[in-house]
Structures are given as C-alpha cells and as structure tokens.
C-alpha cells in the first residue's frame, strides 16, 4: 500500500510538469498583451514597453519559463500582474467560496441523487422510474445558467426567500453563508443529480440481479435491508468514483455559476485573470485545478479498499 501510494505521488510530478509546460505555452500563444491592458487606453508605446519590462515580459520565452518554474519549486507562484498581490495569497482568499459551493453541491447531489437512483432501480419500469429518468434527461439538457436564472426568478424575485447573489464568509455567520450558497448549489446540483442518479440506477440494477440478493431475500431480509445493506453497498464503487470525479469537476468547473451568482471564488478569479491575461494567476490556478484532479483520483482509488475488501494495492 505504502509503495503504491509513493508510486502514485511520484507519478504526479511528470503530469504536473506537462501541465505547466502546456499552460505556459498556451498563454503565450494566445493573443493579448497584459502590459497594454494594464497601461490603459491613454498609454503610449513607451509606457507600454516600460510596463512590459517591469513584468519581465520582454525576456525570451525560455528565460521566462525557467524563471517561473524555478520559483514554483520554491513555493513562489509569483505576483499577480494586476492585483499586485502574491498569487498564492490571492488563491487562498478565493478558495473558500469555491470549496463551499463544491461541497454543498456535492452534499445536495448525494442526498438527492443516490436515493432517487436506487428508487428508480428498485421500481424499474414503473412510472416512478420513468419520472426520475425523465428528470435526469432534463437535468442533462438544461444549461446551469438557465437553471440559475429560473431559480433566482422564483425564489429571489417572486418569493423573496433567498438572496439574488453574493457570498458571505463562513466566519461572518453560518446562516448567511448557508443561505447565500443554497441557490447556486441547487442550480449546479441539477446536472450532477441527473448524472449520478442515472449512474446509481445502473449500478444498483446490476447488483439486484446477483445471486446474493436472491439469497438475502430468501433468508427473509426486509426489502429496505436488501437495498441498503446488500445492493447499494455492493454498487458503491462506481458510484463513489463518479461522485469523486464530479467533485473534481466542480472545483474547476464552477466558473459559470460563480459568475451568475457573483461568488468571489476561483472560477470568477479564473475568468478575470483570463480576460486580463494575468499570466501568473492563470498558471497557478490551472496548476491547482490539475493537482486537485490528481489528488481526488488518488483518494478515489484508495477508497476502493474500504468499499471492497477484495481490492488491495
């Protein structure tokens, strides 16, 4: 197990290096000049050149890359071109909203999707199954921002129950934090509920056909116990995989939701950084997202040993 863990951790190094090279080159090949953007509309050539020099953008590409890489190895992601803050500091201040949104979304998703999927499997072919699967198709088909606007119209503008936008830090009050996250989490959860409910249904259906389920029923177990203890538990590996990957997708994919609901998280930071061509910030955020993917994949693999004792590394 320990050697497996070590191997997996070592394997992340080339992955991260490739991501670093890719994102660095991609940004430099994208049209746009941060110096011209910073300088503003009135700046003349000399002023833009001066800023470019200050930012080190006049150096050859290789020099810029190795300078950046060298600093990363020392834990320094550089200073944001625009905010004049250390990128690490900037990211740290934006993690909480994104993490909160992702966590609440995934909790809502699991709370809704797994029971629905299990129910659909248990009532396969019934109206309940059809309604749940119909909802699943709808959830896949609707873009998040459309769901977001619809929820805002209903719960904020018509009923006045929930705020339209904004974020409150958890340290400023759990209630305000929860209430402000509810609508964005719901909007974002719809697509994941659709996905995971369908996945759960398929997995549980597969397991329900197994001999040990028949045995459990023959032994006189209640249907609830058969479902919860035997079926769902044995169907858990693919479900947990999908939930884990969904969480990874959420962390890096909340851009639209954060923009619509004005949550000052990593998604919004990414959009602002891309529009402003703030290279150090974009590079660090993408590296972080990649790292999150790698770590979550590792955790998913490790969770298999808990869920299925037959799996050993």
């Amino acid at each position, binding site marked *: 197990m320990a050697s497996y863990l070590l191997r997996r951790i070592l394997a992340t190094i080339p992955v991260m290096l490739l991501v670093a090279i890719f994102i660095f080159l991609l940004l430099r090949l994208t*049209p*746009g*000049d941060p110096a*011209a*953007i*910073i*300088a*503003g*509309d*009135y*700046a*003349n*050539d000399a*002023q*833009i050149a*001066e*800023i470019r020099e*200050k930012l080190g953008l006049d150096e050859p590409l290789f020099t810029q890359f190795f300078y950046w890489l060298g600093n990363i190895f020392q834990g320094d992601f550089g200073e*944001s071109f*625009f*905010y*004049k*803050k250390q990128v690490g500091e*900037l990211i740290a*201040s934006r993690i909480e909203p994104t993490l909160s949104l992702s966590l609440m979304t995934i909790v809502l998703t699991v709370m809704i999707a797994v029971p629905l999927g299990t129910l659909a499997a248990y009532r396969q072919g019934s109206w309940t199954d059809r309604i749940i699967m119909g909802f699943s198709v709808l959830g896949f088909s609707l873009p998040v921002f459309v769901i977001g*606007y619809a929820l*805002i119209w209903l719960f*904020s*503008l018509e009923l*006045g129950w929930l*705020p*339209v*936008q*904004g974020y*409150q830090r958890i*340290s*400023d*009050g*759990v*209630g*305000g*934090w*929860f*209430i402000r996250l509810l609508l964005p989490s719901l909007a974002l959860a719809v697509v994941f509920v659709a996905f995971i409910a369908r996945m759960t249904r398929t997995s549980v259906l597969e397991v329900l056909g197994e001999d040990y389920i028949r045995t459990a029923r023959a032994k006189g177990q209640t249907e609830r116990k058969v479902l919860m203890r035997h079926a769902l538990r044995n169907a858990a590996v693919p479900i947990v995989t999908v939930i884990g990957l969904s969480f990874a997708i959420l962390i890096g994919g909340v851009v639209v939701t954060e*923009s*619509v*609901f*004005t949550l*000052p998280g990593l998604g*919004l*930071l990414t*959009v*602002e950084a891309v*529009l*402003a*061509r703030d290279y150090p910030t974009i590079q660090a955020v993408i590296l972080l997202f990649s790292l999150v993917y790698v770590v979550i994949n590792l955790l998913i693999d490790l969770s298999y040993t808990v869920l299925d004792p037959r799996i050993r590394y």
Partner: protein
Amino acid sequence: MFKSARRSLLKGAVAAVVMGVGLAGAATPSSAETVLKAVPHSGLKILDPIWTTAYITRNHGYMIYDTLFALDESGNIQPQMVDTYSTSEDGLTVTMTLREGMTWHDGAPVTAEDCVASIKRWGSKDAMGQKMMSFVDTLEATDGKTITFKLNSPTGLVTLALAKPSSNVPFMMPARIAATPASEQVSEFIGSGPFVFNKDEWEPGSKVVYEKFDEYVPRDEPPSSLAGGKVVKVDRVEWLPIRDQQQAVNALKAGEIDYIEAIPHDLLPLIEGDDNIHLANFNPAGNQFTFRFNVLHPPFDNAKMRQALLYAFNQEDFLQAQIGNPDFYEECKALFGCGMPFETTAHMEGLLETNFDKARELVKESGYDGTPIVLMHSTDLAVLTNLAPVAKELMESIGLNVDMQSMDWQTLVARRAKKDKPEDGGWHAFITSWTAGDLFNPVAMAFLNSSCDQALFGWPCDEKIEGLRDAFARATTKEEQLKIVEEVQGAWREYPTHIHLGQWYASAAMRKNVNGVLPTGAAVFWNISKD
C-alpha cells in the same frame, strides 16, 4: 429511539441555521451606519490612478484623493484644495495657496511640498501633465501652504491641466508616496479626499470598502460637477462588482444593492415601471464613439482616404445600431464634445452626412487600389459590438474592400499597439468610446496628438495640428483658446486623425431612497444620500 434521535438532529440543524443567521447579522456594519452598496462598471484591481488610465482606478482616485482645481458644471476652472491663486503680470509666475485645515487620512497636515511632489509625479506620466511641465522652469513649495510655478513662457495650461477631470487626474498624495517613480505603483493609499480606503476589507476584483473621512473639510460652495463642496452623506460605500448585468438588475430590484453605475440600455425595460428604482445621469456630457485610423499604412496613410470616410459616415446609423433609444444619444458634430467648454461646429459643414458621391470622388482621387482594410471588431464589450459592422457597410458602399476581423477587446488592445503591416498582424482601423471628459480640449484629446512616434496607436503625424495644440497650451484666455479650437477643427478636417461617431449617455440606476447623484462625468459618491 431512532426517530427521536433524528428529530433532535433536525432541531439542532434548524437551531444552527437560526444562530448562523444571527451571527451573519452580527458581522455586518452597525445598523446605525448608512451603507451604500454600489455596483461599479468593473472590479477594482489597480489602485494607483497615476499608473493606469483605467476609469475604475480614476473613480477610486476621486474617492480617496482630492485635486487642486476642478471643472464646474459650466466647464469653468474652480479652486478645490487651493484657497487663492494668482498669475504675475508677465504671466511667468503662478502662485497657489492651499486651504487651511486639510489633512491626510493618516492625520498629517497637507503641505505644499506634498502637492509639488504629486504634481511632479503626475506631470511625468500624463500627456497633458507633460505638456504643462514643458512650460515649467521651476516648481517649488515656497512655504508650507504655497506652491509656486516659474514658467518659461506664459500659458493658460497650468490651472486647466490641474483641473483635468479624467485620466490621469492630477490627484494629490503625501510627498513620501508621490516620491514613488511614476513607472511603479504606489503601495500606500492615503489621500486627503472625502473617503478613506479600507485596505483590510479590500478583496481585489470583488469588494472595495470606503469609509467617510470625518476630518475632511468640504469647501463652502455648493457642489457643481467636480467643483464645490464634497459633502459625504453616507458612512460607508461598498463597491461590489457584479459581472452579470442581468444579475445586477435583479439584485437592485431585490434591494440587495442600492446603485448600479451604468445600466446597459437593453436592460432598461426591466426596471421601467418599478417604483422602487430611478435613473440618474452622472455624466451629462456623455461619451463619444470614435473611429480610429492607423496612418502608418496604405490606404489610410493618404489623408484623402480618411477624408472620404468623413463624408461616407453619419452618426445616426452608428448610434441607432448601438444605443437604439434616441433618449440616450445625440448627434454631435463638435469634435470636442457637445455641452463641453470648447464646443464648436466650425469647419464641420458637409461632414458626417453620408454623402457617398463626395466620398467616392475622394477615394478615386486617393488612388485606392482595393487593398483590404483590416477593421478590428471588438465582440465582448457590449457597448462597442454593433459599431464595426455599420462602419463596414458604409465603407463598402463607397467601394472599399473591408476585412472586418472579430476579436475580444483585450486582443484588440494588444494588436492596436503593433505597428506591423495589417497583413502581418497589424491593423487599419478600430472603433472605441471615450468619456467626454477625456476629449474636452485639443491638449487633453489623446487621439488628436499628432506627434508621430510619440502619438497614441494610429500614430498620426501632422505639424500643423501639433502647432495648434502648442498654441492652445500657450493661450491664456478662453477667447483665445476657443479661436484656436476652431482652427484645430479646420486642420483636423484636412488631416483626420479619427472620426467621432456620436455622443451617447449611460444612466446610473438606484433605489428610490438614494439621491444626490452629481453630474460630474465620473461616478463619485459625495453628495449622495441614502434615506
């Protein structure tokens, strides 16, 4: 037992949420405070208004800094931080005395030395400041409250430049901060303006907090545009940018925010008929759409080709396509803006009236050979999106071959700085928008600068225009200046540097209990009350 445990859990959760709501309340500013929550036109990222010309940073400057002079509603120069000022009979010495009782946000008194350092920093960066400084032999603090300019030649530019209303505005800072080279950003944000910047609560790009500066002593005169008394009527202003404009309107309707700096014209119907919301125009002089030529490359290196567009274009087509509602635009032939101090239509007859015959004649005279004209089209700034297609249509109507290339604004910004040939990644033309405060005279209008390599992108090069700009700087009376402005328009007609495509207006939207928005040209927050 399980049921009972579940019930307890549920009760606990509800209690936690209720307690949390209570805690949330505790985190907000005290209820006695008046907090104005405003949605600015963009997030504040750069805090040094001398380092960048971005409007959001200029507006931040107006919050925390003050200026020596300011323009009033009639466009006249009025003292602001200055108490009295005079010019010697020979016009070579300008003396200014500061008002009593002014302090910086850190409690130190405002001195002439601070102002001298601030003027020098601004004068090394800003184009109008540089022009002004070219007349200055020495600039000194002759005592704690007196600033003395010794000039090499008489000019009316000193007070006019120091009253410059838009970027870069000559804001005053403490000497130790103003000692920062203009090529670097300041790292301390202390001014003597009506609001104090709360650095601890600043979340770059998402939240800016300003608190009323209790020690600020406003002038006694009533407010008039950027001049007069800056009386603060709220305790705290929060800038909370909302990227999605539809959401900003929703938040305003729901009462979560109090003020939107600029509401897009297409969203106005959403608030029409809402009794809780009203509109105000803080920029009555408006903004001007502008078509910019690159004179480095054929065919626009030929003045006749540029003149052809003066005849081919008309402002109504552009304004109708982009703004749509005539309540929010007006045709304005005056190069330096309608409703501005140097408004005149001299030398404008026959222009901007879509005279295709005359335009075609000029194209023919220019010897245009069908070279594709690269017109850059910005697609992500809603306020510019519809303009380039109109230009393309009108240009094609006179036989020009237009290659309209769509791109995001930041790509355009990077590309317009390139002098390369259009076929090698350069450009021929693009359209942008300026606030009228940036265009109000021949020295301030950056696109008129025709000093070749020293000029802004497009790089026009014309001795006559430069001579007239210089003469304007030397003029000491308004009459003299107006006469020169008329001559400038004549010279511009011969050598067009850009074309103004019409004046347009944006409205701020606010809750009914928010009042007192001043017609300043920039979004400022003094005089605004929240009942």
